């Protein structure tokens, strides 16, 4: 007689379920790509990518969810379902990749798209919410803000490539202390922008500190009097007394100079989707581009897109 007690059955059952889960993972994505030419109505909107854009979108998503709560309040033709929007961070490259492979409905990307990257979104949408300007920031305690508030492109290249190593070398009136160069990771959105506008291919000094996020880079400048780095104008505007922006080639990063295009170190804030946004997603996109959405862009210190 076969004696199998309840507990064993339970464990066999559990293990078979686990095994099935594992197996189903193998087949899942193939089906998806065959059967989704039409945008499907999904329960939630998933957005991921750039750590610069994430706080903006997260704030907008909060406001949007709080204001409407369910989709039918946004538009009566939509179902009576709660609004769920996920926002996660991981860098522009991650945003681009996830938008392409469908991990996220929208990828947040803060850099100029190359043509081959644009081509991947030909059937979807590319929405610009504004632009992020990189300021050359120094600590408020650094005398350079008074002694030498303007740097030329050549001086910046010399500093960031490690040719000029102390503040004194830059200007005799400055203290004889090493310059701590802080940058974002090479290949990231911000470093690409900086390379295009200033470095033009000159390698960044191997001694430069690579900081994993824009917020941490701003924090480093605020904490350390010898640091110079490129920071989002947003961060500078949020901490006006702690980070001092320097002019580049005589042009200060003011709103007028940015909008007129005179100040060159900047990048667009983009939302990408691979497929045409469905009704819900379109409503959220519209909201982001409305006065309320762009107000958030401005409040967090970025330059909202001109309408």
């Amino acid at each position, binding site marked *: *007689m*076969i*004696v*199998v007690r309840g507990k*064993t059955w339970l*464990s*066999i059952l559990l*293990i078979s379920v686990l095994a099935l889960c*594992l197996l189903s993972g193998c087949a899942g994505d193939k089906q998806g790509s065959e059967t989704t030419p039409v945008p499907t109505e999904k329960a939630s909107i998933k957005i991921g990518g750039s750590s610069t854009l994430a706080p903006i979108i997260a704030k907008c998503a909060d406001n949007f969810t709080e204001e409407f709560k369910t989709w039918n309040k946004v538009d009566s033709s939509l179902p009576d379902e709660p609004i769920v929007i996920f926002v996660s961070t*991981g*860098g*522009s*490259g*991650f945003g*681009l*990749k996830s938008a*392409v492979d469908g991990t996220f409905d929208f990828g947040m990307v803060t850099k100029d798209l190359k043509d081959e*990257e644009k081509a991947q979104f030909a059937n979807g949408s590319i929405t610009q919410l504004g632009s992020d300007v990189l300021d050359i920031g120094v600590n408020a305690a650094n005398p350079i803000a008074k002694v030498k508030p303007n740097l030329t492109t050549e001086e910046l290249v010399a500093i960031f490539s490690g040719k000029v190593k102390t503040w004194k070398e830059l200007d005799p009136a400055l203290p004889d*202390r*090493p*310059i*701590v160069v802080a940058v974002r*990771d*090479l*290949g*990231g*959105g911000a470093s*690409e922008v900086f*390379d295009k506008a200033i470095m033009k*291919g000159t*390698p960044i000094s*191997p*001694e*430069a*500190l*690579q*900081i*994993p996020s824009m917020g*941490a880079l701003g924090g*480093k400048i605020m*904490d*350390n009097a*010898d*640091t110079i780095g490129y920071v989002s104008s947003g961060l500078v505007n949020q901490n006006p007394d702690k980070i001092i922006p320097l002019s580049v080639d005589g042009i200060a990063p003011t709103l007028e100079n940015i909008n007129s295009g005179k100040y060159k170190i900047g990048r667009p804030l983009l939302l990408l989707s691979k497929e045409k946004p469905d009704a819900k997603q379109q409503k959220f996109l519209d909201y982001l581009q409305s006065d309320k959405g762009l107000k958030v862009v401005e409040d967090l210190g970025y330059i909202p897109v001109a309408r």
Partner: protein
Amino acid sequence: MNPGLELKEKIISTIFISAAVLSSLLLLGMLLFILRESWPIWSQVGAMDFLSGTAWRPVSTPPQFGIAPMLISTMWVAGGALLIAAPLGFGCAIFLAEFAPAPLPAMLRPVLNMLTGIPSVVYGFLGAAVLIKFFELRFDLASGESLFAASLILAIMILPFITSNSEAALRSVAPEYRQAGMALGVSREYMALRVLVPLARRGMMGALVLAFGRAMGETMAVLMVAGNTLMLPFSWFNKGEPLPALIALELGSSIPGSIHYQALFAAGLVLIVMVIAVNFGVNILLRRLKSGVKQF
């Protein structure tokens, strides 16, 4: 034997075997996947140039991929952490197993175990906010990040691993040795250091290896305090960018399928192979070592 029982045994052993096979297959599959993703690096750049090159310029034209600075940083950080944590951990373990008065181990062990439960990002955050600041102020450094700071943080993280595994090894020494020692009237110090520690040597070495592997692979805490410079580190007090930090920092911004992306996968493969090699090496060493009690 009861035929039902036999069937039951068979079913259960099949389940266990398949679970074991599945997990080894997962490891193998992961290795193969990473190897495939990183293959262009090995074939185009070459293993020697990749491992010994000192310039990492993944997005320049032409790109340069050399991970020697990261390899050395990884060894400094993990080795340094072990250097700090091993004496402390062994000391703790010997104290807890042999010298601590009865209620103390029961109280200390949960505290030590809790240290393992603290997320590494919290350690990293503390390191970046407190340790780095302290170094800058205390030693008047331009910036406080260094491999040493990373080692210090890692040492705290791996301390509980070393302690709890070594303590377990010490406690699992057969009681006969203890009784024999007592009968001979040796001091507690002699018993602990000359009898129990040599007997538990294998377990204690194992604890070290586990800790070393963990220290090499640790990402978040290291990323936040090591400074992430691309320079070849010449001392413990230089800045550096260990392999996990490199991967964590750049994978998000690399374009999938690009040579940069593949180079990061290659770096990941190197890291895995390093950890596996350390494990294997020590296993072989341990087999030779056997027990450390001198035979007369």
